[in-house]
């Protein structure tokens, strides 16, 4: 990872980052120092500003959160749920302008309050190009808003040789049945990242920072690292972090508004910063179900939080207090790694049909036409493409069940993935023409089998990717991963 054109220094720095050039103490150093004073310990207030930075941060709730004088602002920016495209392509899922608006909002607020701003999984998927785009926005905002601060960034990329070594040492385990990896699978990844945890964040915080932008990271580490460094119980800190990284999703009704957690040594209290959203014991407990396959465990690189004895108690109509999570340290740290591999170039055909005879026979028709297409486009070329169709109304989303009604209309999404854009487009255009005019048995409508909402109905949609790597990695080179870089802005 490099950020061309900007001066940067590798951690560790002389002076431990205690003082910024203007004589100003960094935000993390300030709070670490304050807590180390006799009598300096007190409950910690953490503001979960956004669970998906770049899709908009509602201002009233965020402002209400700032009015509560938080000790840290955190935002998660990415996820694996959005699929392999973003990780593979290096593109962000969010629009540049809305991402910049959100970043500006949290940056200016954090600098005004002089508290740490922590952002994880930069740029949607947290690989080098995502981190770079996010850092460019941060620098742009700093210039425009005349902000001066100490920025740390941590790439989430995992060097391929580290993974290959881990394969050779038997240190890789597929998650949920992912196949064993060959070395070529690693080499083929367009981008390969690992979810850094509290250990990496801690290195940055110890170096003294105002703003930390992390590549691919555990969403929990954004919020749990500082309290753990300040001596709060790890289990509670991780449990709290897992809830507030999604902002007010844990409330009733759930939403994207900022949420405030107040953490002490026995538990934490949750309060949405939007007045209509209530954190109830049930709504908060239910959040442990969300996108998790086990609601009782939160697995981190450093260990796991266990929630079997978690208690959720109502404080008042809008606040719930949570306690009881425990922490089990891992014997050895592990890293969840994610890699995305280019499959080919994708073109799609968008069309509909409203002829009951066509709809009734569509499976056979599509199979027959795909043979016609193959015979044409492979006359002087390899069969080097994959063809998929999804017939919405029939089985575009799920398999048909016995007794499902036959719809009056269907939508067909036909997809080709080929080595080149030109090849995918050739296959798709041929498919369009022969499907349009295919003379199937029983056909009455000889004008054409398809309805197009517009022409051209075939579109090239860019490169297709797949997850080639989704594994747990043990490595002897853990210390080399996730290096911290400090930059003075």
């Amino acid at each position, binding site marked *: 990872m490099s950020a061309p054109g900007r001066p940067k220094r590798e951690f560790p720095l002389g002076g431990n980052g205690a003082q910024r050039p203007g004589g100003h103490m960094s935000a993390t150093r300030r709070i670490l120092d304050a807590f180390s004073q006799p009598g300096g310990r007190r409950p910690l207030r953490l503001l979960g500003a956004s669970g998906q930075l770049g899709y908009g941060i509602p201002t009233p709730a965020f402002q209400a959160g700032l009015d509560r004088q938080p000790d840290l602002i955190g935002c998660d920016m990415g996820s*694996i*749920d*959005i*699929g*392999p*495209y973003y990780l593979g392509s290096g593109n962000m899922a969010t629009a540049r302008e809305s991402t910049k608006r959100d970043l500006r909002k949290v940056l200016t607020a954090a600098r005004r309050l002089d508290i740490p701003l922590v952002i994880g999984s930069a740029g949607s998927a947290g690989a080098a190009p995502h981190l770079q785009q996010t850092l460019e926005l941060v620098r742009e905002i700093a210039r425009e808003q005349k902000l001066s601060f100490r920025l740390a960034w941590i790439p989430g990329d995992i060097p391929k040789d580290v993974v290959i070594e881990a394969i050779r040492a038997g240190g890789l385990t597929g*998650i*949920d*049945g*992912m196949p064993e990896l060959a070395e070529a699978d690693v080499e083929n990844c367009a981008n390969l990242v690992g979810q850094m945890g509290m250990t990496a964040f801690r290195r940055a915080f110890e170096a003294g920072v105002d703003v930390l932008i992390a590549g691919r990271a555990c969403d929990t580490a954004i919020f749990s690292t500082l309290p753990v460094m300040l001596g709060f119980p790890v289990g509670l800190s991780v449990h709290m972090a897992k809830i507030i990284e999604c902002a007010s999703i844990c409330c009733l009704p759930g939403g994207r508004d900022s949420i405030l957690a107040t953490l002490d040594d026995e538990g934490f209290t949750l309060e949405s910063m939007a007045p209509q959203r209530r954190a109830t*014991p*049930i709504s908060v*407990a*239910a959040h*442990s*179900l*969300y*996108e*998790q*396959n*086990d*609601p*009782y465990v939160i697995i981190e690189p450093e260990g796991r939080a266990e929630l079997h004895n*978690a208690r*959720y108690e109502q404080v008042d109509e809008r606040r719930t207090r949570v306690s009881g999570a425990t922490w089990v340290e891992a014997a050895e740290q592990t890293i969840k790694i994610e890699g995305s591999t280019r*499959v080919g170039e994708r073109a799609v055909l968008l069309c509909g049909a409203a002829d009951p005879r066509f709809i009734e026979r569509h499976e056979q028709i599509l199979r027959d036409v795909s043979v016609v297409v193959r015979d044409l486009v492979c006359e002087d070329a390899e069969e080097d493409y*994959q063809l*998929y169709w*999804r017939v919405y109304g029939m089985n*575009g*989303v*799920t*398999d048909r*069940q016995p007794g499902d009604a036959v719809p009056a209309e269907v939508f067909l999404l036909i*997809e080709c*993935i080929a080595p080149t854009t030109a090849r995918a487009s050739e296959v798709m255009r041929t498919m369009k023409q022969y499907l349009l005019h295919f003379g199937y048995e029983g056909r009455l409508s000889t004008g054409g089998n398809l309805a197009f909402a517009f022409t051209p109905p075939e579109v090239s949609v860019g490169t*297709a*990717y*797949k*997850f080639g790597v*989704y594994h747990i990695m043990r490595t002897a080179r853990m210390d080399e991963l996730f290096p911290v870089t400090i930059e003075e802005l």
Partner: protein
Amino acid sequence: MQLQDIAKVIRSKNAGPRCTTLDIMFNDDADYQRVKQGGAIDAALIARLYDTPEQDVKIIDYPMARALKIAIPRKVTAGDPGDRDVYGAQQHSRLFEVEV
């Protein structure tokens, strides 16, 4: 009675790209206990509804939220060529008409 007549939430979502999870939540303990004790929702039912081996079905009781959590493997890794539901958010509706 069908599950959709008694449940507060019936939803699906990925838990990672290889796993679909189904959550069923109830309004109160009585409804939750009634469905649980009725025994209609078990691994055999989920295996049949989702055409997946019974031993791959995981069902976890989560009384704190009056919920049942079900996890099944995805047949296609999220976003792989041929996938139909990258987020896995539309795989829940065949639970609606389960008799409980």
